[in-house]
């Protein structure tokens, strides 16, 4: 079964805006999913305290009430139910700078990337009610622009390294899908993330439509390798800064988000333990949330994550920002 997770506009949920340097850099992603699941799964409470500190979380409703299973027999579960009605941007297309970043996740098969890429872009376009995007950046698993560099601060923001870089062949193959989207006019500019000098050189040799952007993470050590700077300048590639964890959804994160624990959304059942034991550990949980079922069972394999941002160009105001994530639940 496919799981489609969404945050809607995360700017509406204050908790996702908070930026704590001690947090992992995928904190925004995790907290915005969590906030959106909570907003949908907890019955409306009147009089949450005015300074935003809520007391005991109220009991949550069964996941079936707020998620949505595709009616036509496609095994697709939307968490929460997708609703594009209220998400439109307020102004016309040309007022916005729309950037989309697609993270292919480690462990996900690379063969389906064409489909996945189109699906991701389509979801974003539907969410924003827009016909096209300005910049599509793709992030391949396991690569860092400064692999050779020794900068301890930054290494700590990479998140767990769970993948070796994939072969160039596979990246080029993926890029063809982006080139097609560019030719269709759906995407104006293409970009890659975390390409160091050498990787960028070999990549450029093999691509027809060149990336306009290479996005790198240098928050803590404000130094860019000279070679990369020179190459980018000579090839007209803009070096942009990002603060995303390259491994944006490490193993176990989805299970934590969707699982039955206090921090979870109650969509997934406990993976291996027996029913007896779970009851004793999360007695209340079972009583409140999973009265008519145990949650979905099976192994979760996250496939991709997409982040989108719409900024009003001449005012620099971020109007909409959010994530979708798609995972495969196999049982």
């Amino acid at each position: 079964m496919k799981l489609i997770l969404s945050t809607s506009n995360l700017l509406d949920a204050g908790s996702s805006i908070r930026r704590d340097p001690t947090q992992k850099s995928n904190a925004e992603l995790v907290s915005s999913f969590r906030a959106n699941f909570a907003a949908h799964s907890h019955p409306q409470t009147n009089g949450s305290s005015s300074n935003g500190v809520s007391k005991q979380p109220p009991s949550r409703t069964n996941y079936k009430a707020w998620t949505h299973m595709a009616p036509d027999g496609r095994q697709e579960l939307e968490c929460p139910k997708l609703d594009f009605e209220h998400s439109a941007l307020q102004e016309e297309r040309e007022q916005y700078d729309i950037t989309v970043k697609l993270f292919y996740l480690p462990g996900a098969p690379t063969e389906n990337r064409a489909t996945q890429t189109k699906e991701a872009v389509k979801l974003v376009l539907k969410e924003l009610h827009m016909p096209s995007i300005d910049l599509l950046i793709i992030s391949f698993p396991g690569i860092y622009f400064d692999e050779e560099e020794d900068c301890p601060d930054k290494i700590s923001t990479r998140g767990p390294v769970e993948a070796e870089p994939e072969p160039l062949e596979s990246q080029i193959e993926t890029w063809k899908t982006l080139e097609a989207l560019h030719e269709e006019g759906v995407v104006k500019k293409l970009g890659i993330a975390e390409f160091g000098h050498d990787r960028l050189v070999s990549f450029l040799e093999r691509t027809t439509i060149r990336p306009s952007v290479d996005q790198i993470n240098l928050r803590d050590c404000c130094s860019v390798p000279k070679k990369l700077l020179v190459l980018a300048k000579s090839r007209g590639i803009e070096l942009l800064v990002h603060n995303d964890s390259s491994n944006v959804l490490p193993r176990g994160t989805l299970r934590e988000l969707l699982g039955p624990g206090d921090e979870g959304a109650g969509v997934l059942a406990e993976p291996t333990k027996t029913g007896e034991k779970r009851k004793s550990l999360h007695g209340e949980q079972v009583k409140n949330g999973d009265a008519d079922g145990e949650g979905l069972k099976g192994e979760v394999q996250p496939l991709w994550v997409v982040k989108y941002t719409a900024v009003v160009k001449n005012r620099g105001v971020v109007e909409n920002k959010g994530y979708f994530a798609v995972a495969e639940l196999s049982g």
Partner: protein
Amino acid sequence: MGLLAVGTPLEWEEAKKSASHVRSWGIEQLLALWRKAKGKERDALLWGDEIEYLVVNFDDAERNVKLSLRQADILHALASDPELIRQGGGVPDLNQGEPKADRPAPTFHPEFGRFMLEATPGKPWGIGFKDLLDVEQDMKLRRKIAKEHMESSEFPITLTTFPLLGDRKSITPFYPPSGSKLRSQFVPDEIANPHIRFPTLAANIRARRGRKVELNVPVFHDTNTTWPFKDPTVDYDMHNWPEDQDVRNGAAKDNCIYMDAMAFGMGSCCLQITFQAKGIEEGRKMYDQLSPLGPILLALTAATPIYKGFLADTDVRWNQISRAVDDRTPEELGEKPLKSDRWRIPKSRYASNSTYISQDSRLRPEYLDPDLVVDEDLKARLVEGGMDDRLATHFAHLFIRDPIVIFAEDLQELDLEKSDHFENLQSTNWQHMRFKPPPPGNDTGWRVEVRPMEIQITDFENAAFSVFVVLITRAILSFDLNFYLPIPRTTENMETAHRRDAVLNDKFYFRKDPLPPPQTKINGVSSTPGSGANTPRSRVPSRPSTPTGPVEDEYELMTVNEIINGKDDGGFPGLIPLVESYLDSVNVDVETRCELAQYLDLIKGRASGRLWTAAKWIRRYVAEHKEYKQDSVVGDELVYDLVKAAERITVHEGRDGFAKEMLGECRERP
């Protein structure tokens, strides 16, 4: 300040009779402006900074420094520089080049003090992040151009105040004090810009008040300072003007540095930033949200520890300017029972602001100032003209003041295509935020001016603070941040910001949680409100939930460090982390991001104490100077060395290792 309008200014007794006349015409002009511009939408973010300089003249042989009163000559030299004019720059009041497509050269303006100069960018900045990088370079260019049009012994310095202003000798050319306009025993009338507007402003404020303005700044008590300290420079035996009686009536207070003229306040240099909003609603929202930030910005930029040759016990200029233009009568001040005046007025015309103006559903009535004085008749006229109650209240509050400078010629006929009468009141209400309607006759939008910051010694710092405020406005709008605080708390914070090293040692009232509250959604529809009208995002309009809990629970006392850098306990997130969160959400190139990181690092450091404010640095410089005798006296040679040091800091910005305590190690790149 535009100076083109000239005419016959009325002396106070005459001006007073026309005050209501000017006010009612001003209100009609405001209504006309408002009607024309209230529908303006989708204006771009444009913003501008203003840098004010003191022009000092060094005599290296004699080791002394004086204020140069050559403003008019310097402006004339700038206005007749063909190259500057060719590049679109100049002096708008005298001569300016044709606008150019790309970035035009800067423009220069007169200011109140005849020793001052103001410089602004040739055209406003946008939000292109590359624009943000140009700000500092442009500031440096402005200073360079200004310097090039001065004598070789002169320098445009950005200290807030000249440490020897009022010592009866450190001005060049020399004029004796006690002129007919200012009647100051310390400074001559020639200290002010000779344009008739300025001496009239000073004279009429004094006349309305019924005595000279009175500035008593607490002196810093050092080990050898006498107790009680009696300002030794006060002359009790002067008999030129009736106002000379002021000091014999006790105007000079014990333990204070006493000053008696508008020049002591309006001769201070500030760093002001003006933003154009998308439309009137966004402007009103920014005005409200930036207001509680004012005292924090003031404390962070503290740079004014010396007055008239003495160390003061306060760090910032604000209250001195406030008192220097305080035209309230004894009745308005509450010193005498109300007889001929209309009301008691709690604040000077120059003070922290007293209104919130947004139609934001988050604005609770409890936040408003309970002491607000409003001219109900003028308010009724605005409401009758269609303006909503909240905005009408704001302007009817500003219009409780009298117009100070009235030109006889302007009273003939009401011209609704102009804004002169409106501006007469609007621009002599010097609050820490100013809400500015679009001027008639061009396409400018609704603007908000941020006025509390002190000028910094280097252009690096001035750029850093300007850019920081720009980024904060973007974070406020993007994240729908809520900084609402009861206005009286902001007023108190403004006082707190005056204390020595308030940035490190004092606590300020601030809202605990500025972030939108957690949401509950039913079928995707949000049930918690944002700021209501005209939110930047596609939030579903919804009924505001009834706020629960007392307003007092929404805020607490925080240090500047907590407000800027965030609280460790997961409480207040910190303005810098919010700005960084904003930067993470937009596309910024590496070069820009690294430059911005230096700016943000300066502000982080100032807040944490890692970097010093100019006030702290100057105090240390004085304390360690060989001429200083621990008696609070900052003497001539010391001031010469200090201003020389400021010049050195301006030029090298810490790259030579000097004043690193203030600027940090980050200024290594050429």
